[in-house]
């Protein structure tokens, strides 16, 4: 029961929104549904914490890892809904681009992502990861401009092809499990597979093949270089709240799928193969994205490349493995989500005031837009991993893992890339903050609701950087226990 609420609330929200005609009612329904969803997720997380693994029927299941990822989904989606209510005041009415469609699709998108987290079955997980692409493609193309349509098309095609490879990988896993003696009916259930994993050693070659396909497939969705081509376009062309959802929730969702497969593979044939593959993908993504950040001209594209960079860091954390590596990776997904949400919200504000996201045309934010400028400084410092923000802690944990397991090359690469990113962001942001602008900002003061959501982001970042609350620690411990039984 506890699991059905967070799963079906967004679906009900989508239906209600599609039924409403009045834009004002739409916003109110959306905010109510968002609040209820957050509460439902909170209750689900609490129940998982007190009762352990929850199972509903054969296809739904939630364990510690699920609850960890559900927390960031609930938090970010609630923030995004509040932010959108102020952002989408002047949406041009068009086919598939009205307030109704926006909120309807957002709730469908949320439904598919919650379903990915709650899937007990790897096949079902695949179905819903593919569904996330379908639900969000229209949101990426929401503005209906040339760029938006192109980005939407690219997103749809690239991700569908990528995910098709993950399907083949899933099938190969199924085959390996069936050959290893698991009954065909339950050979895709993650729990069963995890329990049976030590007995699958015989299918070593097949599991390796399967994991390569899964890593390429879900890796496309995570945005690993070289399958990342859709990511900067989609993030840059989508409305800012959607960019935040894509970067802070969707990428984690795909990473979650990879984590599940990595756990089975490591348990079955040792962690050497899958972890090396993740280290390679992570290292390449980190290096390439950090260099590309230097030459970006569009603020949201810059933030998109920063997402690729951070997903690379998370992949490195998983690839290093062990308690430290995994802890750092999980913590980093959470921290990155919050920092990136704050930055995309700021980007939305910049766009409203300057009418552009081209960074060379934006000057003097520190003076003319004190609140947004402040948010940009906080977000920028947080995303580059400066103390006292959360990302400093998680990056430090991952670096410690790299040094303590003698992965010196990875450690040096990571330090170098983080320095490059720091330089790049400093260069871009100081250009936007300093100087004097010729244009007068449309509305220099921040709306109250935006102030609240951005304040919540900044507060979370500082809290996680200074002291991880006991409750959050318990959830983290639960997530780690699932992956390292």
């Amino acid at each position, binding site marked *: 029961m506890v699991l059905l609420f967070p799963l079906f609330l967004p679906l009900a929200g989508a239906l209600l929104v599609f039924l409403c005609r009045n834009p004002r009612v739409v916003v109110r329904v959306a905010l109510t549904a968002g609040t209820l969803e957050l509460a439902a997720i909170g209750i689900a997380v609490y129940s998982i914490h007190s009762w352990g693994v929850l199972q509903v029927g054969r296809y739904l299941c939630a364990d510690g890892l699920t609850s960890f990822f559900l927390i960031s989904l609930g938090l970010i989606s609630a923030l995004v809904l509040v932010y959108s209510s102020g952002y989408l005041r002047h949406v041009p009415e068009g086919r598939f681009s009205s307030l109704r469609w926006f909120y309807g699709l957002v709730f469908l998108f949320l439904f598919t992502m919650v379903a990915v987290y709650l899937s007990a079955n790897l*096949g079902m997980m695949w*179905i819903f990861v593919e569904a996330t692409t379908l639900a969000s493609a229209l949101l990426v193309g929401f503005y209906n401009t040339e760029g938006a*349509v*192109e980005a939407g098309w690219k997103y749809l095609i690239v991700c569908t092809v990528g995910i098709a490879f993950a399907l083949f990988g899933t099938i190969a896993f199924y085959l390996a499990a069936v050959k290893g003696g698991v009954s065909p009916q339950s050979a895709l259930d993650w729990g069963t597979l995890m329990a049976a994993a030590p007995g699958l050693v015989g299918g070593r070659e097949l599991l390796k093949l399967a994991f390569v396909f899964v890593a390429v497939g879900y890796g496309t969705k995570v945005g690993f270089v070289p399958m990342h081509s859709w990511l900067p376009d989609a993030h840059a062309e989508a409305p800012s709240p959607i960019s935040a959802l894509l970067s802070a929730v969707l990428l984690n969702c795909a990473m979650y799928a990879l984590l599940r497969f990595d756990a089975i593979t490591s348990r079955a044939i040792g962690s050497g193969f899958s972890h090396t593959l993740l280290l390679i993908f992570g290292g390449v993504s980190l290096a390439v994205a950090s260099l590309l950040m230097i030459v970006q001209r569009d603020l949201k594209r810059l933030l998109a490349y920063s997402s690729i960079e951070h997903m690379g860091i998370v992949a490195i954390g998983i690839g290093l493995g062990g308690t430290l590596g995994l802890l750092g990776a999980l913590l980093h997904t959470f921290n990155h989500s919050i920092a990136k949400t704050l930055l995309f919200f700021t980007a939305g504000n910049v766009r409203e005031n300057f009418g552009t996201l081209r960074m060379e045309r934006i000057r003097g934010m520190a003076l003319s837009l004190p609140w947004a400028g402040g948010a940009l400084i906080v977000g920028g410092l947080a995303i580059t991993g400066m103390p006292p923000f959360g990302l400093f802690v998680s990056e430090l944990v991952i670096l410690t893992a790299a040094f303590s397991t003698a992965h010196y090359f990875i450690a040096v690469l990571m330090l170098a890339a983080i320095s490059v990113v720091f330089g790049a962001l400093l260069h871009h942001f100081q250009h936007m903050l300093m100087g004097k602008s010729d244009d007068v900002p449309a509305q220099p003061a921040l709306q109250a609701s935006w102030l609240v959501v951005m304040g919540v982001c900044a507060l979370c970042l500082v809290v996680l950087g200074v002291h991880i609350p006991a409750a959050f620690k318990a959830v983290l411990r639960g997530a780690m226990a699932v992956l390292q039984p």
Partner: protein
Amino acid sequence: MGLFETAAAKALASSGVFLFMTVLLIAAAKRISTCIALFSVQSLIITAQIIAVSRMHHSTEGFVIAGLVLSVKVIAIPYVLYRIVEELKAPRDVSSSTSSSQSVFIAAGLILLSFFAVRPYVGVLGGDQAMLAAAVALVLTGGFLMVSRKKALMQVVGLLVLDNGIFLAALTTTFGMPLVIEIGIVFDLLMGVFLMGLFVFRIRDTFDHLDVSKLRRLRG
């Protein structure tokens, strides 16, 4: 093994050849509608294979899946694509960057390549070598169609061919996955095609052409 089972096994073994033929014909085709028809034929062959396999394994679920594939991949998706071609009122050639004969040679090369590629895995994956090779060949030609054809609709056709390949690989190696999962996968595909069709119209409306090779505004 009864007569019907033997016949089914024989038909299954030789059906790979028919799939190779559809691959070569799609590579040679100059009109989008021909490609759609060939995709439909290809899906029909795969449906026949599903029926043969489920007959051999005495599985009733297999027949349900066959019915599903028949209605979605052989009838619904080609019909939707036909309608889109009609509605678009745009030139109907595939506008390939390679000529027809070059494409056939490349497709033939890909078929050869897939025979070599699957050889080390026949033992591991099980299944018939020709069928596995056909699956890989479908995936490769699907990818080839997607990169060489400039029309947005042809990218959809390429994607569908690629997807057929993965479906065939699943069929030959695992004799199908649990029914609920198969239904979900086919449903996703159907929704995906609808959505891509929608985007094709939007591309036409915003750009006044359907040539995706000219969509290059977003770079770097």
